């Protein structure tokens, strides 16, 4: 290797050595040296049309590969445009390294052009951030950033680099590059494993809840093995979807505010809860004081000890990597002999019926469109959603083949996530069909990324669920704000098919009366990118629903009359 390397060249060296093949970014003054170093390099730079999309695309890249996603932006507005994406990654535990340019060191603190203290701004939306003051510290800072982003609990890390550091040459006597072993992770104690198995063997109505921790632990195989042996009913949080096999009859569906009735009622009746890699989010627990009221034993498995007792106090904690924890649980259960929960499984499945359907629509139901979509979509597809009603309808219906096949913004609930996320997934998995399900609100927050799809000829297909409303907010206004529909009507939406055409994307409309199955087959089988604009009944609501802060006893199965 050439001895005299600039800071920018060192950044690219580190990206390569960390196994990064693709970065998502947007150029600008302070970051120009890095873009120059990336010019023609093996590490591919994907030009998005807004920095927020770079963070979301990097997030999806990470969510679907388990690798670290990288986004790049310049100082000032470039960096601040990343903030929402970093916050999104923070709440969903996504390993991202954000590299931002900074004004040159001598200008820092002078309110220079495009100067902002991005390190202070991102303090609470990153695991850590660092301002690199010397080119000789650059390699070490980046290596540590990647290591920290990966875990034990993944998350975003920001590395802010002044432009003079990017341009400077590494000193002749700078320390040689170190190698950093992966961060050590804790291991659940044998005693806790044995106590958990003992509780399960004594249980009459156990329920297992799986969350996003299984995704980051790559524990799908171990989870399915454990559940097959245990034979208990199980449910998933939004980010746990895909852990259960698509045909697993013991799986009761998504839990929480818009989860399946049987899933919520089974948890309410459970005497033992085993919570795996989930954090008892308020959208899952509602009112934590009445959550799982009959449970005499709650087991909580997590890589992050700060989750224990944060919302729900567990009786047994399994502090460790979920893949290992599940392996140990399976081995211990096999030794102890698995009990039979067949009767409870049947009883739990009967606690709720099918998803409700609006009985009197005046137009195409979004739920009918989504039912047809999921009936047609290939098994190996990756589906990214935006945020809102369509997200919950999709989460209720999707049966992904694995945790990488359904990606969504769960913790932060970031509108505008879906389309750039689909782009990130398409770069990560060039051979797999990728779909974005978006609402008309979120789609309009990410429209510029149609240009990214066009530039890179990405086969991203967009199912636009257009109800001419910010539907989820409208639903709450209808139910809880006396039907005062403040600022939620999108009556003046643009012609979305014409917009797609302007970006060279084929598009067609789907309206009431159109043959749904045929339209969806056409959509999912079409080569390349496509927009399907589903013009939907504007007043359909998401049910079941447990109102915020309440329990399953307040579950609403259909619109009150």
């Amino acid at each position, binding site marked *: 290797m050439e001895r005299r390397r600039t800071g920018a060249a060192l950044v690219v060296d580190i990206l390569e050595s960390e196994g990064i093949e693709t970065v998502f970014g947007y150029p600008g003054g302070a970051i120009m040296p890095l873009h120059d170093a990336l010019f023609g390099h093996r590490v591919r730079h994907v030009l998005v049309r807004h920095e927020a999309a770079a963070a979301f695309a990097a997030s999806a890249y990470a969510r679907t590969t388990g690798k670290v996603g990288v986004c790049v932006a310049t100082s000032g507005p470039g960096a601040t445009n990343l903030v929402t994406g970093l916050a999104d990654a923070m709440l969903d535990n996504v390993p991202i390294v954000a590299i931002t340019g900074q004004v040159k060191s001598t200008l820092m603190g002078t309110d220079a052009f495009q100067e902002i203290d991005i390190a202070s701004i991102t303090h609470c939306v990153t*695991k850590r951030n660092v301002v690199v003051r010397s080119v000789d510290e650059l390699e070490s800072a980046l290596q*540590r950033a990647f290591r920290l982003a990966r875990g034990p609990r993944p998350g975003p890390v920001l590395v802010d680099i002044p432009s003079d550091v990017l341009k400077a040459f590494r000193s002749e006597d700078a320390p040689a590059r170190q190698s950093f072993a992966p961060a050590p992770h804790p291991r659940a104690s044998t005693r806790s494993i044995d106590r958990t198995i003992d509780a399960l063997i004594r249980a009459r109505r156990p329920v297992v809840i799986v969350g996003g921790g299984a995704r980051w632990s790559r524990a799908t195989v171990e989870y399915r093995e454990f559940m097959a042996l245990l034979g208990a009913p199980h449910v998933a949080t939004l980010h746990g979807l895909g852990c259960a096999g698509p045909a697993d009859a013991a799986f009761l569906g998504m839990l929480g505010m818009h989860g399946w009735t049987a899933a919520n009622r089974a948890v309410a009746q459970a005497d033992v809860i085993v919570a795996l890699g989930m954090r008892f989010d308020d959208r899952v627990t509602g009112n934590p004081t009445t959550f799982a009221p009959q449970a005499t034993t709650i087991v909580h498995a997590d890589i992050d*000890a700060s989750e224990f*007792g944060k919302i729900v106090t567990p009786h047994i904690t399994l502090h460790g990597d979920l893949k290992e924890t599940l392996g140990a649980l399976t081995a211990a259960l096999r030794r102890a002999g698995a009990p039979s929960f067949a009767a409870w499984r049947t009883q739990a499945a009967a606690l709720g019926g099918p998803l409700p359907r609006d009985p009197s629509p005046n137009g195409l139901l979004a739920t009918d469109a989504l039912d047809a979509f999921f009936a047609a979509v290939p098994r190996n597809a990756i589906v990214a959603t935006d945020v809102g009603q369509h997200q919950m309808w999709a989460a209720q219906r999707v049966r992904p083949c694995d945790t990488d096949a359904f990606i969504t913004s769960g913790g932060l609930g970031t509108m505008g996530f879906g389309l750039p996320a689909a782009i990130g997934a398409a770069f990560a998995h060039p051979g797999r069909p990728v779909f974005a399900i978006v609402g008309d609100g979120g789609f309009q927050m990410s429209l510029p990324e149609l240009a990214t799809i066009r530039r890179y000829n990405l086969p991203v297909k967009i199912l636009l669920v257009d109800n001419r409303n910010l539907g989820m907010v409208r639903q709450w206004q209808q139910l809880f704000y006396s039907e005062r529909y403040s600022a939620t009507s999108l009556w003046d939406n643009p012609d979305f098919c014409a917009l797609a055409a302007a970006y060279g994307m084929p598009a067609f409309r789907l309206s009431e009366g159109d043959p749904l199955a045929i339209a969806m087959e056409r959509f999912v089988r079409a080569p390349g990118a496509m927009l399907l604009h589903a013009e939907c009944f504007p007043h359909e609501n998401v049910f079941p629903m447990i109102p915020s802060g309440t329990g399953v006893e307040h579950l609403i199965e259909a619109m009150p009359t």
Partner: protein
Amino acid sequence: MTHSIDTVDGRLLARIINLTHRFGCSYTNLSARREGERYAATIELCGPADALRRLTLQLHKLNSDHEEIF
């Protein structure tokens, strides 16, 4: 409650103070000194017991993340 910090990154104190207020707690005393490359600090925290318990969990996490990178 006393929380002790030993760090090379003095900015960690700002994060801890912000987090303290986020949890509805406050601090009654803060002392910090720099020794070579490191900062040694102690912060006296007060607030509702449950908030302090949850804050403590987050501070432990913050410290462990911090140790990973520096």
